């Protein structure tokens, strides 16, 4: 739809354009069903997960003040942050892999921006009807009916947004307590801020900003197009088959009229959530939602033409060249993806719920006792990340003749507790052959010898022995 002819005279104007609202038309079909399924699954998970409980705690809870992340049976400590890094790498590789394989699948079906915008569109249609009615309503003067419809829409949007913000905060603070606090208008300052902030962001992004987030703000949107090659599945208009476009009677034979299969109904433009014309070719604004595919197939069916005038296809297929799916970049992405995922799962499986930090006292290099023995002092931080208490046994190795002395004899540590134990290594200086030694502290659970960690420390003795 060319709108430039309707524009005011060019020249001398602003370098910035006025935003034109996009009214996506409702669409049904295979890909719309897929997206609705995606929306319901993802949002269902988002809104319901915090309400589940597991082994006496909220199933998914990111407890920031206690610095513990609960995800079902797993409890993550700050020491486990490496897993988050691995998860982010996996996400990035998965994005690369799927984008190379089939274009912007993430944008079209799973991105929060798409998912929440979809829900906001549904709510908009409850009150304002489909595209044509919406345009008509927006052009009408503000009167009773319009005011009612608009305010009802915004009320529902705002309520849904606040519920979204509430759910978001519910991942970080127990949601049942938060629910009670909200009902009594008794939320803490940060809880209030984040509920309102996240709610406002949802309302603004899904209600007002919509495609502008994808077009002007999103960095992924820009670089994803760089991951396409000639074998990437993209939503494309079959120009050879469609052109020259033109309207015709359903009974007419296009060949006699000298027309292609495109009936120029502009439905593909009307359903587009970013307001582009797919028939102009691949554009960076295209989020790959396949709404145009669904609607065009509908029209083709009514015209009794073959479906797929707009379809998922590759540049090579369009030009009659065979498409290669397993090309080097796809193979490399999938190999890396599998390797890192396997490594993450393996390291989670062998992860021990026990931590030991050795911090050497720095006030004095060493201490000489009255008996002439040399001592080094350490602070040991023992972290029992397990769900049950354990009694531990500590040994030291790496220094012949050394004795380990603990201030505490019983290393019985409750579940989820960190205990600080001062420790000394004592040695007769006749055993010291050099100034410094690496020593190794080994901590073993008395009830389970597989539960052990080893940590390096440093022992320093006098220069003159």
């Amino acid at each position, binding site marked *: 739809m060319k709108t*430039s002819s309707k*524009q005011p005279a*060019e*020249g*001398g*104007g*602003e*370098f*910035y*354009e*006025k*935003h034109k609202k996009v009214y996506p038309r409702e669409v049904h079909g295979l890909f719309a069903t897929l997206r609705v399924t995606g929306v319901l699954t993802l949002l269902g998970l988002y809104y319901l997960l915090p309400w589940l409980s597991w082994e006496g705690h909220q199933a998914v809870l990111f407890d920031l003040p206690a610095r513990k992340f609960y995800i079902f049976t797993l409890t993550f400590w700050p020491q486990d942050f490496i897993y988050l890094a691995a998860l982010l790498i996996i996400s990035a590789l998965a994005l690369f892999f799927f984008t190379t394989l089939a274009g912007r699948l993430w944008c079209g079906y799973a991105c929060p921006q798409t998912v929440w915008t979809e829900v906001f569109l549904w709510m908009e249609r409850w009150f304002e009807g489909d595209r044509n009615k919406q345009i008509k309503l927006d052009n009408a003067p503000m009167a009773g009916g319009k005011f009612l419809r608009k305010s009802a829409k915004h009320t529902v949007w705002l309520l849904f947004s606040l519920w979204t913000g509430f759910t978001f905060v519910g991942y970080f603070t127990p949601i049942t307590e938060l629910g009670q606090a909200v009902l009594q208008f008794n939320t803490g300052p940060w809880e209030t801020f984040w509920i309102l902030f996240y709610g406002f962001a949802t309302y603004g992004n899904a209600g007002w900003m919509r495609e*502008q987030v994808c077009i*002007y703000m999103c960095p992924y949107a820009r670089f994803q197009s760089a991951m396409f090659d000639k074998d990437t599945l993209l939503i494309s208009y079959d120009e050879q088959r469609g052109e020259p476009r033109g309207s015709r009677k359903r009974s007419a034979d296009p060949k006699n009229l000298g027309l292609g299969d495109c009936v120029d109904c502009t439905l593909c433009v009307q359903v587009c959530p970013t307001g582009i014309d797919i028939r102009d070719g691949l554009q960076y604004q295209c989020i790959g939602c396949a709404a145009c595919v669904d609607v065009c197939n509908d029209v083709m069916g009514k015209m009794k033409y073959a479906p797929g005038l707009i379809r998922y296809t590759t540049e090579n297929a369009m030009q009659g060249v065979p498409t290669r799916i397993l090309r080097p970049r796809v193979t490399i992405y999938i190999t890396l993806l599998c390797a890192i995922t396997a490594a993450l799962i393996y390291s989670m499986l062998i992860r021990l719920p026990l931590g030991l930090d050795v911090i050497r*006292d720095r*006030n*004095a290099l060493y*201490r*000489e006792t*009255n008996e*002439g023995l040399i*001592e080094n*002092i*350490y*602070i040991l931080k023992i972290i029992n990340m397990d769900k049950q208490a354990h009694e531990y046994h500590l040994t030291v190795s790496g220094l012949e003749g050394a004795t380990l002395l603990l*201030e505490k004899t019983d290393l019985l540590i409750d579940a989820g507790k960190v205990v*600080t134990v*001062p*420790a*000394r290594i004592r040695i007769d200086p006749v055993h010291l052959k050099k100034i410094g030694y690496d020593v190794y502290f080994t901590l073993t659970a008395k009830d389970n010898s597989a539960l052990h960690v080893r940590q390096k420390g440093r022992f320093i003795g006098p220069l003159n022995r």
Partner: protein
Amino acid sequence: MSTGLSIFVIVFTLANIVGCYFLIRWSGQKRQGEAAEGQVTGHTWDGDLQEYNNPLPRWWLWLFYITIIFSLVYLVFYPGAGNFQGVLGWSQEQRYNDEIKAANADYGPIFAAYSKQSIQDLAKDKKAMQAGQRLFLNYCATCHGSDARGAKGFPNLSDTDWLYGGSPDAIKTSILNGRNGIMPPMGAALGGAGIDEVTAYVMTLSGREADPNFAEAGKQRFQILCASCHGQDAKGNPALGAANLTDDIWLHGRSRGAIVETITKGRTGVMPPHRDFLGEDKAHLLAAYVYSLSNK
């Protein structure tokens, strides 16, 4: 900062902000010969890569203007324009003091509750002692060591030897008011031979081997010069912080050389007072922790 510099900073900052406004206005204007919206700009790269004029939405421009307004509002409310401190009176120091106040309001009652118990009782309270250990690691371990066994010149707090007394009150007083221990240099008064003799005598006090003749001579000198502080029996004097010399515990080194140096040059020990930054309540808990180390 001086008035001149302050005026310079204010003028410079405001000139920059105003400059930004004009820069944005200037760059937002369409200039002659520029491509219309949706047209090719005429720039070509790599032979066939062309640039279209795809303008940003206008609200994006407003964001720039909003940042300019924000910066002006900020300069009115917060310190930024030279010596002008802003109408809110906000400062880093104030923030720090507020946080200290908030922390005291949060944790103060815990320490206040502990301070109502006697030090002997607290020393048996496992939870209180965990808190006491954390305080000790923060405030005391730097000198006395994480295990409280001290270092050369810094007393071991886990034994039963006390320079200033090991009663709960004496420990608390040491923490609150600090201690200044002075062993005066005796080198000049004793002379070379005198030092050797007194050293020998001091060593025998702890049952160590030394030349008996020297020790005998040293005993005479000790009674004249040293007994006034360390006592006739050499068991020290907690009122002065004079060390007990009969227990084979040596704060400044056990070797003969170290003892000679102590007698010749004297020693100075300083335990700084902690009343001001710990307060009575925390000192009470710390005293209980230190007391617990030698009274298990």
